């Protein structure tokens, strides 16, 4: 959001013209997508978020953790208690130690944290050519450009231009700063099969998983906006009433 503020101030100060190209060179600006959660009335497209959870489970979660989420949280994308129990039960998670002091594993419950693919950072790096796949709980908030940026990365893979020397194990991505990203292209057409029959194109999957990730980073958003409207309307009325009282109280003062 600092970037938004920068633009605002740049415009206000009329030095934007001189300064804008300097940032533009860093990395291409992600193009704005239409999101169900945009704007003061926006809420999550739950069908998209559920499909996005499927993409996360079948693709992203092979490398990326989401340690701040619990299976019970999935209520927020419209899953029922039984669905959540079934999803959790299908996952095996560490469950402390047994009577002999040996590490124990067992099926997750709705109260369990999302399973992490690697036990620790070293294991993750060892499996990924030294790169660390970031935790995705907050990824949408943690990147400038937010949902648009994550979408642009997921759909930004291409063949490198002939002039470009790629480092070992790196992949070319139009949107990534420096264009060399350790993550191999995660999505290919038909990578998952959607139960609702939606064609699983790269764009569709990217759109769905970004919707899911935006929910994961801001699960309170819909309730927040609802309360916000009530609050703002209440105080608009209060402002009018208070101003009327003020006029009346001050009527005899000159």
């Amino acid at each position, binding site marked *: *959001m*600092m970037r*938004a*503020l*920068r633009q605002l*101030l*740049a415009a*206000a*100060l009329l*030095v934007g013209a*001189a*300064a804008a190209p*300097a940032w533009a060179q860093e990395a291409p600006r992600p193009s704005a997508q239409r999101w169900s959660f945009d704007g*003061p009335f926006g809420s999550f497209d739950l069908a998209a978020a559920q499909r996005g959870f499927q993409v996360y489970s079948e693709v992203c979660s092979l490398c990326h953790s989401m*340690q*701040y*989420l619990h299976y019970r*949280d999935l209520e927020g994308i419209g899953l029922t208690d039984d669905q959540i129990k079934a999803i959790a039960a299908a996952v095996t998670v560490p469950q402390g130690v047994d009577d002999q002091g040996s590490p124990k594993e067992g099926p997750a419950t709705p109260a369990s944290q999302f399973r992490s693919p690697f036990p620790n950072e070293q294991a993750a790096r060892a499996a990924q050519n030294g790169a660390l796949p*970031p935790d995705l*709980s*907050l990824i949408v*908030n*943690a*990147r*400038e450009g*937010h949902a648009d940026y994550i979408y642009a990365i997921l759909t930004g893979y291409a063949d490198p231009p002939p002039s470009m020397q790629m480092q070992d194990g790196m992949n070319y991505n139009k949107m990534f700063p420096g264009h060399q990203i350790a993550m191999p292209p995660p999505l290919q057409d038909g990578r998952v099969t959607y139960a609702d029959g939606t064609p699983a194109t790269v764009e569709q999957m990217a759109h769905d998983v970004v919707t899911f990730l935006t929910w994961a*980073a801001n*699960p*309170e958003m819909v309730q*927040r*906006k609802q*309360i*916000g*409207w009530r*609050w*703002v309307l209440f*105080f*608009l009325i*209060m*402002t009018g009433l*208070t*101003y009327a*009282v*003020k006029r009346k*109280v*001050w009527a005899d*003062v*000159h």
Partner: protein
Amino acid sequence: MAGQHKSEFSNPLINWIDTRLPIFTMMQQEYGSFPTPKNFNYFWNFGALAMVVMMIMIATGIFLAMNYQPNSELAFGSVQHIMRDVNYGWLIRYVHQNGGSMFFIVTYIHIFRGMYYGSYKSPRELLWMIGVVILLIMMATAFMGYVLPWGQMSYWGATVITNLFSAFPIVGKGIVTWLWGGFSVDSPTLNRFFSLHYLLPFVLVGVVFLHVAALHVVGSNNPLGIDVKSPQDTLPFHPYYTVKDSVGLCVFFIVYAVLVFFAPNFLGDANNFIPANPLQTPADIVPEWYLLPYYAILRSVPNKLLGVCMMFGSIFVLFVLPWLDTSPVRSARFRPIYRQIIWVWVVSFVILGYCGMNKPEGIYVILSRVATLYYFLHFLVILPILGKLERPLPLPESISRPVTGGGGPLPSGATAKPMGKA
């Protein structure tokens, strides 16, 4: 009952208490019948607004502290716990997080009000200086509060700012190690920042009390900047200004709510959603928006020690502002040149803020140096000279009898007085 206060309250319980401890009489005198200039504009809302934000910050902060863990291993996760699992934790946290910004917005406007209408001039010098102490405590509190979520910008902001003290020769390094409680910013630093972040707001309450006490001794300034001369110039604080402050408060709550409910992270930094990592420095380390102008002053000077001195100097110069401004006229309304150049100073302050969020390269170096120069020039050169050279406009005779006609009929008491003898 010799020595006892004679209370005028009719309610027997209130009367009983008030006779023994006259707090009700005090409240009645200081906030009920307190004579207040009748010509305040809405700029005079902002002191009350700052008081309200302070109380909101303390209330929300106490609840956040119940669920927060000041430990480098747990801090980031405990904030996520507040955001996701604590009932309405997200609301409490966003109100607190954006409350910091709102606190600075209203305080900066409050300070500008004081500068524009010359509220710092005799007899309000000490009132003003206590206000500058409030600003310093706010900055320290806000800085330490920003460290607590233990994101990347928290960690690196703390590293950069604490490292400033290393600029002082000989003792510098020792001071930094002492501040950190170790050899880098780590858990001991976080733990003590949490302790101080909880303590300082209560120190702030004490200093705000002194600020208000000093105000109630010398009385409020007003948009005309002239002294209250007769009871016709004043109104009782209640209901006139309680209701006028309430209007401002309602508008303030709308602006605050738009930030909290629709753009809670607008003023934040994406990097602070990444847990602190001592091995990875963010591309650009920037403080919160309200500290950017001072950060720009710091970075505009090539010498570190000088930069640190200039940065602190930019606040300390406010302490002596009452003596730097040599004009006997308070309000900018009657100072034709001052009322223009005060805006140039505001622009230089905004430019500094803008430079503060950009890397000190190219145009920003020049821009921030020019703005820094003007910032100090305004206080140290222009104001002392201007007071001697400027020809102020004729001042009104009294608040209830403005020199430029208009207004309503004069109050009956004032008409009896001959012109030119207030």
